[in-house]
């Protein structure tokens, strides 16, 4: 294998007498030398017609379908339920096939609001103290498919809220919204196991998503209530394909069917490690399609991590370098910059096969759906040929 920057493409001196060494400036590996050109063939009078055939490929395997939420008939009480997964190809290669479901989007809520970027805080300022109202706002006003409730206060180092109090809160939220929810832990492995166990039991049959299982938790103990009370579990690996493989394998060995498992490879936000996520999401999905069973589960992305990048939320005055040529307005309002940052993060990972997204800003969700739902759309109606965008070059705008 070799790479392009080794290539020198044909180029003759553009004007007579020009030194070709002039092009050898090593700023970028610019091609400067060409082999002697072969004599030009006789020019043709007619277009040489040929067909382009879409290069389809049938992958040997597909990804399991995971249902989120359960209706009354299914043993839960949710009015709305979703399915993710089922993909048999990469999402932007429609010629290979299209996944059966649209991406599912959750908006983050917290039982104890952490410091939030101002544009995010603005969207939720009325409900920051009330997780149930927060969840309702996400679903009803901001059109999230479901809320993700992060039980951060259960951390022994923060408030040490008891597992039964956490379970009560989850029940409150379930009373308020008609959707399933994602139950997020505090990140304390011992406490998360206790909280998950309790909440899973008290919401038996609802098919909620628990987030998340990490390598320092007892996998068997974490998986057991998921199987027993019929819930889904997110396995969270930290940008490490071996860790992801181990978590998926062990949780499946512990009895969790692939129809209840979701893998999160960790999302580095745009400009903050997204390329590592991009490649690892792609690798795990490709491995799944090529037959590696442990990876044949839907992928989840916490796109909300995009807010870690300062370009997403800082004031232009802070971001703008001293010698910047552009006017300050050109940096744009934070209210738009952050959502672009978050939506771009989510969409790039959607192109790698992620199908569940935990997000933060309502506008980011809107943007994500605008594009993401098109990528995932099963049948395209209007074709590019009909729209004739070829006149862009001569159009006045």
């Amino acid at each position, binding site marked *: *294998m*070799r*790479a*392009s*920057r*080794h*290539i020198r493409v*044909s*180029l003759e001196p*553009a004007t007579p007498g020009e030194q070709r060494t*002039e*092009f050898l400036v090593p*700023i*970028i590996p*610019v091609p*400067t*030398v060409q*082999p*002697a050109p072969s*004599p030009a*063939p006789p020019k*043709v009078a007619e277009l040489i017609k*040929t*067909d382009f055939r879409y290069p389809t*490929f049938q992958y040997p395997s597909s990804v399991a379908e995971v249902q989120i939420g359960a209706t009354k008939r299914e043993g839960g009480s949710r009015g709305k339920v979703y399915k993710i997964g089922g993909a048999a190809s990469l999402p932007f290669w429609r*010629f290979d096939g299209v996944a059966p479901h649209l991406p599912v989007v959750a908006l983050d809520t917290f039982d104890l609001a952490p*410091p939030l970027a101002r544009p995010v805080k603005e969207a939720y300022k009325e409900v920051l103290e009330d997780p149930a109202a927060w969840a309702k706002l996400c679903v009803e006003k901001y059109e999230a498919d479901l809320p993700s409730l992060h039980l951060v206060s259960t*951390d022994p180092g923060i408030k040490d809220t008891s597992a039964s109090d956490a379970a009560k809160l989850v029940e409150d939220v379930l009373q308020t919204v008609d959707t399933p929810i994602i139950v997020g832990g505090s*990140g304390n492995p011992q406490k998360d196991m206790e909280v998950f166990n309790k909440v899973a039991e008290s919401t038996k049959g609802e098919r909620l998503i628990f987030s998340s299982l*990490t390598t320092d938790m007892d996998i068997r103990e974490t998986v057991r209530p998921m199987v027993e009370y019929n819930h889904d579990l997110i396995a*969270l690996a*930290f940008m490490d394909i071996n860790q992801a493989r181990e978590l998926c394998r062990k949780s499946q060995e512990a009895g969790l069917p692939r129809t209840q498992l979701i893998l999160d490879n960790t999302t*580095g936000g*745009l*400009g*903050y*490690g997204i*390329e590592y996520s*991009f490649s690892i999401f*792609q690798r795990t999905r490709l491995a799944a399609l090529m037959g590696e069973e442990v990876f044949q589960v839907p992928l989840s992305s916490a796109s909300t991590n995009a807010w*870690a990048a300062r370009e997403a939320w800082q004031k232009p005055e802070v971001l703008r*370098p001293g010698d*910047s*040529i*552009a006017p300050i307005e*050109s940096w744009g309002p934070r209210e738009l910059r952050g959502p*672009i940052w978050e939506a771009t993060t989510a*969409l790039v990972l959607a*192109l790698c096969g992620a199908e569940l997204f935990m997000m933060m800003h309502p506008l980011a969700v809107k943007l994500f759906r605008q594009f993401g739902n098109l990528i995932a759309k099963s049948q395209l109606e*209007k*074709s*590019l*040929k009909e*729209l004739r*965008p*070829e006149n862009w*070059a*001569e*159009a*006045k705008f």
Partner: protein
Amino acid sequence: MRILRPLDVYKYLPQTNCKECGEPNCMSFAAKLVEDRTLAEKCTPLFRDTKYKEKLAKYLESIRPPVKAIQIGVGHNAVNVGGKVVMFRHDLTWHNPTPLALDVHDEMDDATITDRVKFVNDFKYTRIGADLTLDMVAVRCVSKSPEEFCRTVSRVSKLTAKPLILCSYSPEALEEALMAASASRPLIYAATKGNWKELGELALKYKCPVAVSSPGDLSTLKSLAKTLREGYGIDDIVLDPGTGTEGDSFAETLNNFSALRRSAIEVGDVTIGYPLMGIPAAVWLSPDEDENATKIRESVLSSLLMTTYADLLVVHSSDIWVLLAALVWRQSVYTDPRTPPSVKPGIYELGKPDEKAPLLVTGNFALTYFLVKEDAGKIKEPSWLLVADSEATSIESAVAGRKFTVDKIVDAVKESAISEKVKHKSLIIPGYAARLSGELEDALKDWRVFVGPRDSSAIKDFIEKVWKKEMHGEELTKEVLPLDRKKSG
């Protein structure tokens, strides 16, 4: 995908072991070349000596990537587009980051054109040690007048040394412009079903690369490329499969880009083995009522087209907030995935810190390190930066993933012997690691642990308003404490 072996290249080398390339012999040059660790042109005798003419042609053919690299422009500012070898960056680094061209047209007033071209010339945003820049100017013929178009192209070439794209479907307009600007090797846009003969002639006559355009009709696109390639002997071609920005045509667009790239790389179809061109600027053909909504569409479309293999993009918005996300994504996706995203754990001196200088602790994720280093550099006094091994992950992820732990910080403190270098025995940990502070104070006994800001851009303020006051024993008012200061919860 074709895998090149050292012998495939070696047979076309001079085999004189002249060492001009810096390698001990031709075989080791060949070995490095196929591993992407040296440059093809470093075999200078092969390019210089006419007796190697035949070998050179075969050498270039053997290393030609499935997507040809096309040079647009000349000199320092020239760009290489395409030159792609793989579908996935985890297989091999993507090369030739997608150049962004900003458009102007011949009915814009002079001041607007000057502003826009200057914006391209001067745009620079430094991020993690690299400059993000804009790369080209696309000049569009809106007036339908060859004279107007030529005048505008000449003006623009005087204003910038960056490569141009000459955009018109009229052979007359393009020829007028080429007479003025062909020496700087612009890209001619575009040969279509209607004008391919004339455009083929222009590309040959002026020795410039040419784009073929057939929106939504890939068979015609391929026929155009095949005709210019086989019928005209033109090999510097760029493909425009059409950029749909509305509704379903957007999904079709990404699909077409991917299909062409897969055909070139995995099927080995040389007829379409050329770089792909995307036109996010086309969103302005159907603007939203709210101008910002159109700009947002353009931004997102730019990033997505880059992800689905666009090798060259034309954009219209000249707002930093619209361009920045796409530029940062470009910077990210074109990094070398083989390079570990980490720096060596240990103690780093920022300036010449003394025993009174503040001691900041962070992780060894490269992005974190560079940002913290840059921000700590803004503190008036020099400082110490202690990098603990967070296994190359950001602080937030590393704390959650138990990679940035009390033990790791204690190890870093001990191994760096920093306690012999600072007298104050206090250290500042990142805000995202707040929950480690209590345990860390227990572990480090006589040390005092400060919880700094979550984002390092606030370090300067933190040092001035919190750390210095605390260290000088002054009383603190509650307001200046950051939100997530230790034990505030």
